[in-house]
């Protein structure tokens, strides 16, 4: 025991110093990870594995909502039908302002026979920030979806029209208030309330 005590003190500074070094290295490495996480996700977009690309498209807006590089990196994926709906959702989450040709690609999703494409397209459009002529084009192509047999599509259309619509679309939404489903009626009523011009208080 006495021998141990005699040995221990000279080792102690070394042990403590080593521990500090390890902690410092760990911190530095964690810091590096957080700094390059966005770059790593953007680099994942170049992967040959479609699942990795889709994961990156999903993760980028959630983890790096303030990213200044992501929109430019995501936009080319609108050209690829495999990734279009995921790219559209990501760009909508970033509230991107896209060129008209890119908006047309997203509008193309609204005609899909796959309901998931349509709902993702509507959610993407909801997030975009576009000038009035483009918004008018979007609204014009959304209105027929209010008569879609799929209730989820009708509800998402109401929500997107509530964001981008104008009082002129209210007559197209009003018939939905007669639908038997309460959730459709609620989304229709919410959209009408959002679009109805509010009287200016004096």
């Amino acid at each position: 025991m006495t021998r141990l005590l005699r040995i221990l003190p000279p080792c102690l500074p070394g042990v403590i110093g080593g521990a500090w070094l390890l902690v410092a290295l760990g911190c530095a490495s964690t810091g590096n990870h957080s700094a390059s996480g966005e770059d790593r996700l953007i680099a994942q977009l170049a992967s040959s594995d479609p699942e990795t690309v889709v994961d990156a498209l999903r993760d980028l807006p959630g983890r790096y909502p303030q990213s200044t590089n992501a929109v430019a990196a995501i936009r080319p994926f609108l050209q690829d039908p495999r990734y279009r709906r995921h790219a559209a959702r990501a760009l909508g989450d970033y509230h991107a302002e896209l060129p008209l040709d890119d908006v047309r690609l997203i509008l193309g999703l609204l005609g899909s026979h796959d309901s998931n494409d349509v709902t993702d397209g509507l959610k993407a459009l909801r997030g975009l920030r576009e000038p009035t002529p483009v918004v008018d084009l979007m609204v014009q192509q959304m209105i027929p979806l209010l008569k879609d047999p799929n209730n989820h599509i009708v509800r998402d259309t109401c929500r997107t029209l509530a964001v981008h619509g104008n009082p002129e679309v209210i007559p197209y939404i009003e018939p939905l208030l007669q639908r038997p489903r309460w959730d459709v009626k609620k989304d229709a009523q919410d959209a009408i309330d959002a679009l109805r011009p509010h009287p200016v208080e004096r």
Partner: protein
Amino acid sequence: MNTSQIASLAGLLLLPWLGSGCIHITDEIDLAYEPRGGREVLSGAAAIPVQIQIMDQRPVQTDVGKVINGFGGEIGEILSNQDVSTYIGGILRTELDARGFGTGDQVKVDGKLTTFYNRFKMGFWAGDSIADFALDVSVRQSDGTVLYSRNFTAQGIEPNIQVARGHNAKAALEKAAWNGVNELFQDPKFIAALYQAAGKEPPQ
């Protein structure tokens, strides 16, 4: 040998065949196209008369898929009640009409359908119905000059199916056809070629 003996003998001979599971099923499907959502009506498109001609160049033209049993064996054919090239041409016509294009022979859109076939991918709990589509499209002026040519491939998937029958193949085939045609109309060069073939400036 009397009649009852002949019947018994025939029954005896048929017994192994009945037990072998050799059953043949033919599913007939009605392919349909219901456009969803709106389309952008293009300015000046009404003055561009377009004619569509689709040629069926599929290697197998008799069926659009096979019915599969629980063991993955083919037990019959899936037949389309419509002529497949007419069906694809009808989708193109509907999409052109929705964008405001006219009908006529000033601009010719030729298509060669090389693939339109469904296959079933069987899983442990459920399977997928996967349809492949391939179409070569060209746009010609009335004098025959080709202004646009491109091959489009697409896939349509009806996921999580329980039976490998015609109705699931129909859903996948309809998705594949739309996906392919949608890619064509998403190509700005195709629209530009239609205008160019009519001697007009494409819209911005």
